[in-house]
């Protein structure tokens, strides 16, 4: 049994002066150092003894980390050190990326969102990460600084397993960038927790949709699921199903069943695999109906 009230273990606090210095330090101390953003996952993992790093490298003061900007050409850039509450106060986020806004608002509590960051949520790579699905559906790209300099990493292919990503030693994510979103996009995030607010998700359903004249249904749908697979999961087959013909209640049923068939959850303390699978079907169905109303149909 873990000590229910452990203190933080001993570590050194490093505040590098430049990105190059930060990447160098992290690369030279592989397994002993990690970047520190809001700390809302880091401190819990360290108190519980799961992470035993000797150095926390506070990267929040590095150039660009606290920048938050939106423009009609480049889209949204959320610096890695921008807390969710600050991001949510930028009106463009709710206006152009409603799915991201709704997902971020579902994370834990208001005071935790004063510290929690979207990039931290992504890099923690929990299958339950609430904001990850929305960032995937908005085609998010991470700006990464490594020992070889700057590069972009798309979120597709970024996750390798629970807590595992393609990031290498010395890599620091500077920001998540979301391109200009599809015109008239609507979104809905449904989070099933053990209580109504603030819990981790048993199942999380992110749905994005927008008008698309090129497909038979007239609408492009994208669906991503949290907490039902080792990594955040986009269900590409649902996009096909929901493009294939006129949107009817029967087609929504088919899509919801396809979502249930496509996911592969596990039993854990928050819910059984079987329960999760049924909830995926029910919540995807409910979410699609909500989206359909938002699309004005």
């Amino acid at each position, binding site marked *: 049994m873990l000590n229910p009230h452990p203190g933080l273990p001993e570590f050194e606090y490093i505040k590098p002066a430049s990105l190059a210095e930060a990447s160098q330090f992290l690369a030279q101390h592989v397994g002993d150092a990690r970047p520190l953003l809001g700390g809302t996952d880091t401190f819990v993992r360290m108190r519980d003894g799961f992470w035993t790093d000797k150095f926390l490298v506070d990267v929040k003061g590095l150039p660009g980390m606290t920048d938050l900007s939106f423009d009609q050409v480049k889209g949204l850039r959320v610096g890695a050190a921008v807390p969710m509450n600050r991001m949510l106060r930028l009106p463009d986020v709710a206006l152009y990326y409603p799915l991201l806004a709704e997902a971020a608002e579902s994370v834990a509590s208001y005071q935790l969102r*004063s510290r929690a960051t979207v990039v931290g949520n992504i890099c923690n790579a929990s299958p339950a990460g609430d904001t990850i699905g929305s960032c995937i559906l908005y085609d998010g790209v991470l700006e990464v600084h490594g020992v070889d300099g700057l590069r972009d990493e798309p979120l597709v292919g970024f996750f390798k397993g629970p807590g595992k990503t393609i990031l290498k030693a010395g890599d620091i994510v500077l920001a998540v960038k979301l391109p200009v979103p599809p015109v008239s996009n609507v979104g809905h995030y449904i989070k099933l927790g053990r209580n109504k607010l603030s819990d981790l998700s048993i199942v999380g359903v992110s749905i994005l949709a927008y008008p698309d004249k090129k497909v038979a249904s007239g609408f492009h749908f994208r669906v991503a699921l949290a907490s039902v697979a080792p990594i955040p999961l986009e269900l590409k087959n649902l996009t096909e199903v929901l493009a294939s013909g006129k949107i009817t209640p029967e087609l929504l049923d088919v899509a919801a069943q396809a979502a249930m068939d496509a996911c592969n959850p596990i039993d854990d303390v928050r819910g059984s695999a079987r329960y999760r699978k049924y909830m995926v079907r029910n919540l995807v169905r409910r979410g699609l109906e909500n989206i359909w109303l938002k699309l004005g149909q």
Partner: protein
Amino acid sequence: MSLHPVTLKINGSLEQVNVPANMTLLTMLREVVGLTGTKNGCTAGECGACTVLIDGEPTNSCMILAVECEGQEIVTIEGLANEGRLSILQESIIEQGGVQCGFCTPGMLISAKALLDRNSNPSDEQIRAALVGNLCRCTGYVRIINAVHQAAAHIPEA
């Protein structure tokens, strides 16, 4: 572990302290500065008993290192009263009977103050959402929510 000098403002007064890297703001407030109104509940960012304002934002003080607070302005429960006079929120929670064991009260009031600072006339639902990170095992929340409504009604129009 090396010590880090930190200068910050706590309830309006400038403090200079030397802290080890692994000391949270919560521990610093309680054990170095001696402000024990802020409570240590879960040390996991879930119960909200340790909530303080950092530059006006309610934050779990167990989830931030003291060394990260360099140059910031902290308000704790001790900072709500003004020259010995309780704030409207403090008076309201007493009048409404929103305190039983009292352990959650400091964090609850800080979250409520932050809510009223950004929304002077919140709905029931907005109060519940703002206080979701503050757990109370005694009151059942209703009297606390009533206290926030009462305080909101007494806030002078801007």
